[in-house]
């Protein structure tokens, strides 16, 4: 019998829809896989005890002849940044340990409405601050390709979960690359939609003007299928866009079937194809560019000069917004409370935040508080916003010349645990490839483009103009199909087998 955890989400959904496989079977297979390997990977912070019940209800509805969504009954992993009724939602922080929200984040509610079954909550850097999951208060997630290596971050849990075949689909959130960088270093696919394309309602905010929820999976089509479910206007999020989106799954299917990039003008971002990019990553990227050309794409070099200031601007805007967003964690209404008799509310707030936040979170709160202070606002937050405007203009100019931009999705393959955790600046610099898209609001995708010298996955990044997410799926699926032809299947299947502990 087919191993239900090894097949793509789309294929699994097909089996579910045709009745060949029940949701209980599919869910049980993934729960078994989690039980077998997650002790080692630690992709999950919480496994949904109600998953099988939810699966059974879907099966019953299908048996009753109800017309269900094409993904109904398929399992999905949810990043812990998203609020879920009945499951703790901690955002990787001690300060929210055990907190169970009374409401579902909109993307979660939409998955539920489509009949997907939540397997559980995935690990992440605390409040999504980090690129390695080493800042999770609950311990790091390990990269399924090499357990001595980081799975990327902040959404290392979601990326590792799909890469380790613990889930076909996952949700992530991307503030500066938290979907794309983990996808890149785990050989997965991840998409940051256009800002406003997916509701942020119920996503525990890091930096409101940058955060965007998106899909993580092993194939482009699977991400597109999830994006179709979670996207679209939500009246609960004022920044969610009011527009009709095309079917991303249709775009991905078209792209895969086309087998050609004829007529597509592709720009290589000069500033992201130079120093700072590891030689093996650079080599894979050159190969990818040649593949694009070989498929009929017209490749030119374009410049986005203000990218030079992106990391600096990002690390002012993000901490500034985060310092305010995280102010609510004061122990008064929810979350960890540290108190002793006779203390004032200020004492209790301070003690709770001291105990509940990790070092990286405190560092960024302090940075952000400083950047917003009277007398410094213009120099820091103000200038950073100006840089942001410049980056947006640069991208506008670039997209006037080309349909799509490409770059490596991350400067290196997965680094080792502890390699950068003591050097915040090195950790921040690692985000250079992904940050510009968040500052500009444009959509971006990471997909596998091969292996580095160390045998670890290397990711390709595609960037499209605002609202043109479909272009990512179309081109991404074409590239993926061409690579799969070379490799004899998607990259994820080249990952080393994990030892399964006895069930």
């Amino acid at each position: 019998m087919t191993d239900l955890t090894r097949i793509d989400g789309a294929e699994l959904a097909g089996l579910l829809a045709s009745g060949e496989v029940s949701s209980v079977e599919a869910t049980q297979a993934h729960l078994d896989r989690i039980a077998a390997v997650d002790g080692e990977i630690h992709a999950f912070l919480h496994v949904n005890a109600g998953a099988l019940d939810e699966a059974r209800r879907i099966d019953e509805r299908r048996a009753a002849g109800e017309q269900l969504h094409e993904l109904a009954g398929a399992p999905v992993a949810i990043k812990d940044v998203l609020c879920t009724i009945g499951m703790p939602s901690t955002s990787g922080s001690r300060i929210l340990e055990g907190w169970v929200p009374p409401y579902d984040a909109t993307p979660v509610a939409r998955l539920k409405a489509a009949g997907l079954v939540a397997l559980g909550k995935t690990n992440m850097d605390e409040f999504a601050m980090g690129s390695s999951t080493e800042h999770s208060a609950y311990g790091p997630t390990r990269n399924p390709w090499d357990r001595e290596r980081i799975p990327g971050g902040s959404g290392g849990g979601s990326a590792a979960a799909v890469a380790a075949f613990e889930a076909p689909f996952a949700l992530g959130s991307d503030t500066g690359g938290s979907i794309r960088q983990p996808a890149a270093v785990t050989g997965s696919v991840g998409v940051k939609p256009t800002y406003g394309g997916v509701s942020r309602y119920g996503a525990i905010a890091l930096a409101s003007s940058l955060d965007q929820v998106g899909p993580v999976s092993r194939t482009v089509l699977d991400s597109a299928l999830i994006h179709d479910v979670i996207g679209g206007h939500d009246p609960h999020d004022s920044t969610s866009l009011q527009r009709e989106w095309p079917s991303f799954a249709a775009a991905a299917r078209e792209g895969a079937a086309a087998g050609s990039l004829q007529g597509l003008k592709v720009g290589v971002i000069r500033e992201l194809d130079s120093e700072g990019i590891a030689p093996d990553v650079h080599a894979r990227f050159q190969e990818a560019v040649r593949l694009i050309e070989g498929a009929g794409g017209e490749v030119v070099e374009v410049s986005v000069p203000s990218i030079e200031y992106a990391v600096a601007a990002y690390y002012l805007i993000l901490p500034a917004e985060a310092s305010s967003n995280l102010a609510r964690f004061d122990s008064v209404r929810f979350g960890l409370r540290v108190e002793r008799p006779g203390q004032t509310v200020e004492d209790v707030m301070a003690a709770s935040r001291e105990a509940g936040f990790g070092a990286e979170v405190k560092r960024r709160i302090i940075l952000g508080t400083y950047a917003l202070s009277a007398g410094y606002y213009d120099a820091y937050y103000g200038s950073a916003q100006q840089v942001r405007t410049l980056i947006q203009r640069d991208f506008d100019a670039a997209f006037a010349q080309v349909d799509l931009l490409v770059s490596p999705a991350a400067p290196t393959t997965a680094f080792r645990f502890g390699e950068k955790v003591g050097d915040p600046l090195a950790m921040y610099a690692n985000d250079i490839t992904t940050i510009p898209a968040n500052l500009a609001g444009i959509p971006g995708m990471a997909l596998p483009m091969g292996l580095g010298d160390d045998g670890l996955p290397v990711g390709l990044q595609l960037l499209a103009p605002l609202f043109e997410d479909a272009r990512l799926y179309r081109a991404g699926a074409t590239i993926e199909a061409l690579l799969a032809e070379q490799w004899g299947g998607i990259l994820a299947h080249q990952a080393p087998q994990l030892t399964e502990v006895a069930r």
Partner: protein
Amino acid sequence: MKDRLMDFDEALERYEPVLGFEVHVELGTRTKMFSAAPNPAHPDHHDAAPNTLIDPLSLGLPGSLPVVNEEAVRYSISLGLALGCEIAESSRFARKNYYYPDVPKNYQISQYDEPIAFEGEVEIELADGRRFQIPIERAHMEEDAGKLTHVGGATGRIQGAEYSLVDYNRAGVPLVEIVTKPIVGAERDAPELAKAYVAAIRDIVLSLGISEARMERGNLRCDANVSLRPRGQERFGTRTETKNVNSMRSVERAVRYEIQRQAAILAAGGTIVQETRHWHEDTGRTSAGRPKSDADDYRYFPEPDLLPVQPDRALVEELRAALPEQPVARKRRLKAEWGFTDLEFQDVVNADLLATVEATVAAGAAPGSARKWWTGEIARLANDRGVEASSLVSPEHVAELQRLVDGGALTDRLARQALEGVIAGEGSPTEVVAARGLQVVSDESALVAAVDEALAAQPDVLQKIRDGKVQAAGAVIGAVMKAMRGQADAARVREIVLERASQA
């Protein structure tokens, strides 16, 4: 500690008061400023139990997001227009960051450098009819905080309390904060001006129907800024901001108190501390709150969860066209039209009967008669019953009653009986008159016969009248009125009594 106060007149001689006001108006929208939670400032939700009008945003739960209440924006625009303000083409919300347990997100969503309304002017009128233009700097939208109750202390204040309870019902109630520019030139009218300004805002808000504007409920809250500068000095003195002033009378008293307190300090060579002060209704004093300086750092930045508010200009014009007459202008017009004295007009205003009298006049009553009914007999009956005068009887019925009096069909006394019938629900005045048989007896011979009878019955009184003691006629008049069951014109009866007494 008791503050030293300088005599008010002396204080004014030496110093010039400069005032400024921040008035918060709670809007009575159906839901809160940024969420669908019910609004406790809406009449349907008064007296809700603590923490029942809440939702994820009211508690600042992780992941919750604000969404602007369009009704609140419309109300704010109307208020801005009524204050004579410009309405911004684009205005933005900003976060005001500070930690306090009644602020669920530990930031308040307010407006900072881009308020919805700016640069206006409000005309106010003092009791003697003198007018002032109060310059308005801005009116901006924001959300209210929750409410803290300090438990265990003797005073109910935070000092000495054992613990505090938080009610988040109020968190997120839509507010408009109206900020004046510095007001100079009020001089010794400063306290009265303060009261008149708050009254003017209240009247505007009521005329727009956007808030119940009840100060005792906190629908309308005033922070009064007061500073003094020595005569001849250009630069403003250091100001204090008095909070917790929740009646118009208190605003007046608080301003007077601060003038006298600050004058005493300055005259003794002291300096005024820039601080928040709390008004104590019971003692009539202010006390020092927290020090406040311009260096308070709220780390404002544009609220990234909300888009700029860019009201459609057609909507603004629509709201402008729908503005009611300005309350001050309306009062001035009515007073002139009705020809009332200051005192008469003030009676009507103070009893909150302006609209009622206006409707009665519109229904055909002479203004003077309408006023007498409402501030006299009806007010008395309302007071006895503990209800609003306007709820007892309709202006149309009052006008009808007066028409019957004017036409001679009823005496004042009969009209009062008819009024009672109307209030008792017996029908219109005409119907009550018919049903109760309340007719003035105008048959002269019947009156003369009744007078003769009464005089014959009281020969001693007759003698007194003949001796010139005219006031003794009262007893006879009473007897006649009784015999006529009150349905006679008492003045005519009196004439007949005197006439018959002198003849007999």
